[in-house]
């Protein structure tokens, strides 16, 4: 069709959520007094007005087919008040003003195969990214990794009896769209990119690729007559940053693209200031369809955390108290030279004190 009859977009931007908000929440907006956690998957928020709103939370496959979506809405109409929201971790929350609706909702969701829980001190739904299903640079899948892991962590999602919330994230390349968390399962490439020199000239803007490298390991070069790029393999830290702007710089490798596990990321300001996650395990095989090696390590860490941490200690708080040496001891994970940071500002990670645990 021609320009004339193309439709001009309405730039309405971000819609107002009030129109879709439960009336009790609208009425008591900003006037909540306290909340309770009567049982897994259920929250009771009480307003200064005395009003109550009950929330029932359930986990889903993040990527919904319309059938699953309809099932969720149907349950909302039949057993809820027709108002839902999705959490930042893609769990669905049903809000009802009548306590009596809670149990029927739970039953309906459970019967339909959704998992009620994920509240309070649970292992929350693992936040994930696109992976092989949709992204153009993934080293692994996302939905698959998460499905396989949630199958094994489901009880912690349902029981909510960890020392504190556990926020797990995954990412399918070192760009890490999944963010960070108490535990993160991320891609770690271990070999420099293999360059398809025939394509570079056509596909890549060489200067901007050169600029993208964190360690200036890329330089323009002529390779058998063609304008291409060259990587200084001594410098290269195998991060894959050159791959998005230049697909011929193949960083992904079925063998050498590994998984790494990080712990102790925490964005909340509760107690200590927000913290970045730290590397604890790497060289883990990228092993579809169920990635058992990675899951085993995650479960091992969670087990020790659950047994060892005091109430209200997040994973970073727990390790702060017991110390990293003991963390490696109890989890049985090896400590290697790779654990000693050598990136900018690494000195701050060295122990400049005699604070030592025995």
């Amino acid at each position, binding site marked *: 069709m021609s320009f004339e009859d193309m439709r001009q977009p309405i730039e309405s931007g971000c819609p107002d959520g009030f129109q*879709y908000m439960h009336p009790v929440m609208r009425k008591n907006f900003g006037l909540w007094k306290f909340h309770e956690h009567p049982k897994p998957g259920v929250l009771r928020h009480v307003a200064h007005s005395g009003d109550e709103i009950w929330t029932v939370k359930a986990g889903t496959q993040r990527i919904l087919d319309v059938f699953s979506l309809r099932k969720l809405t149907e349950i909302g109409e039949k057993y*809820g008040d027709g108002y839902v929201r*999705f959490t930042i971790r893609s769990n669905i929350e049903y809000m009802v003003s009548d306590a009596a609706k809670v149990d029927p909702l739970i039953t309906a969701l459970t019967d339909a195969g959704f998992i009620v829980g994920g509240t309070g001190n649970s292992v929350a739904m693992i936040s994930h990214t696109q992976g092989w299903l949709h992204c153009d640079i993934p080293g692994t899948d996302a939905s698959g990794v998460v499905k396989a892991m949630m199958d094994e962590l489901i009880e912690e999602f349902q029981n909510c009896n960890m020392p504190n919330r556990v926020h797990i994230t995954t990412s399918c390349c070192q760009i890490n769209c999944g963010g960070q968390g108490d535990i993160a399962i991320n891609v770690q490439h271990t070999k420099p990119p293999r360059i398809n020199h025939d394509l570079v000239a056509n596909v890549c803007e060489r200067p901007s690729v050169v600029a993208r490298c964190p360690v200036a390991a890329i330089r323009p070069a002529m390779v058998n007559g063609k304008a291409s790029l060259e990587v200084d393999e001594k410098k290269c830290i195998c991060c894959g940053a050159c791959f998005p702007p230049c697909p011929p710089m193949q960083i992904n490798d079925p063998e050498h693209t590994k998984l790494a596990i990080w712990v102790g990321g925490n964005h909340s300001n509760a107690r200590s200031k927000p913290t970045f996650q730290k590397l604890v395990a790497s060289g883990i095989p990228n092993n579809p369809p169920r990635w058992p090696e990675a899951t085993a390590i995650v479960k091992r860490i969670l087990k020790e955390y659950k047994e060892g941490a005091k109430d209200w200690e997040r994973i970073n708080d727990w390790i702060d108290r017991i110390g990293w040496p003991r963390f490696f001891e109890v989890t049985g994970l090896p400590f290697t030279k790779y654990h000693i940071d050598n990136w900018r500002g690494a000195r701050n990670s060295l122990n400049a004190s005699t604070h030592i645990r025995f």
Partner: protein
Amino acid sequence: MAAKKLYDTPMLDELEKGPWPSFISGFKRLRDDHPDERINEMASSLLGQLEHSYETRKGYWKGGTVSVFGYGGGIIPRFSEVGDAFPASREFHTLRVQPPAGNYYTTDMLNQLGDSWEKHGSGLVTFHGQTGNIMFIGTNTAGTQHFFDEINEYGWDLGGAGPCVRTAMSCVGSARCEQSCANEHGIQRWLVNNFTDDVHRPALPYKFKFKVSGCPNDCVNAIERADFAIIGTWRDDMKVDQEEVKNFVKAKGREYVIDNVITRCPTQALSLKDDDTLEVDNHNCVRCMHCLNVMNKALSPGDDRGITLLIGGKRTLKIGDLMGTVIVPFMKLETEEDYERLVEIAEETIDFFAENALEHERTGEMIERIGLVNFLEGIGIDVDPHMVNNPRQSSYVRTDGWDEEAEKWFARKAEEASA
């Protein structure tokens, strides 16, 4: 009609096992049970390509350029590198659609969106992506335009993709949370809807993200995942219901309270009196939220509420992960003027970013390169000790402007005093 092509998916089938809901089963429902053949074939083809990825441990999508009329972004275009083997999902673009602030939906609206997507797309949708968009995953170029035209008519707009202002996010906050110190959703919309042009027409050095949390628990990870993080807090004394404190001590015991509340305070601002009441040193409480979280009924934020502003949070690329750092320790958000001031700071920041950041450099990286002071001067904000954990540790600085800078401080203090 030609019978749709089926592919063996032995590896993916493994992901139908186990108690957690299986996305693969969902795909298969679309392939096998959906009335629309287009959807059956797209799902089947998608399953085929994904199985291929699982077997070879590689991805097979490449990017490209697709957008709807009038916009430059909002779509993540995907073309298959193995399209001949899996033709029905050869084009598999994703539309990023902005959710309502706070992610609220009526079931009706969800159904309506589902209906539209079934007409024009794959039938696969995610609530939400990590940035916060509804992701309508999988359609061809025409489909993106038609689907957008349809939902845009009943109130939905595209979000950001590319070097632009991105879709924002706010926690449930005031709508359902006793810890909330701000109108999260209002802030989100005031900000992001002031930049719709920058959302739809990527023209910045790189992406720019807003995130809003109602309190320092930061349920939307604003501090690490937003260039511009707004986090609620309060300035006066926290509220203490001593009766509830006593109940809590009675229920849990003194040792428990000392070991789990008193000693966990990062600034030792809490003292449990011998009579089981709690004394709070409000001047040294840093609003970390821990005691309020634990003694939810007994303790709550004060009345003089506002927000803290932090700049520069982001993930790994390319100098390493960065947390946002404080540039406005506290500001009230009550009057319209307050909101306008907030928007003004955002505009100053984005203008400065647009002019001074290198290509593909985020705000945090830019500040790392030019120094916080230069950034502050660029957006016209005065230095403040709340912005740092501690003053400089290095004597390597040229300080010959000391007296003038000292004067500025005294002048400001005098002003504040007289104000």
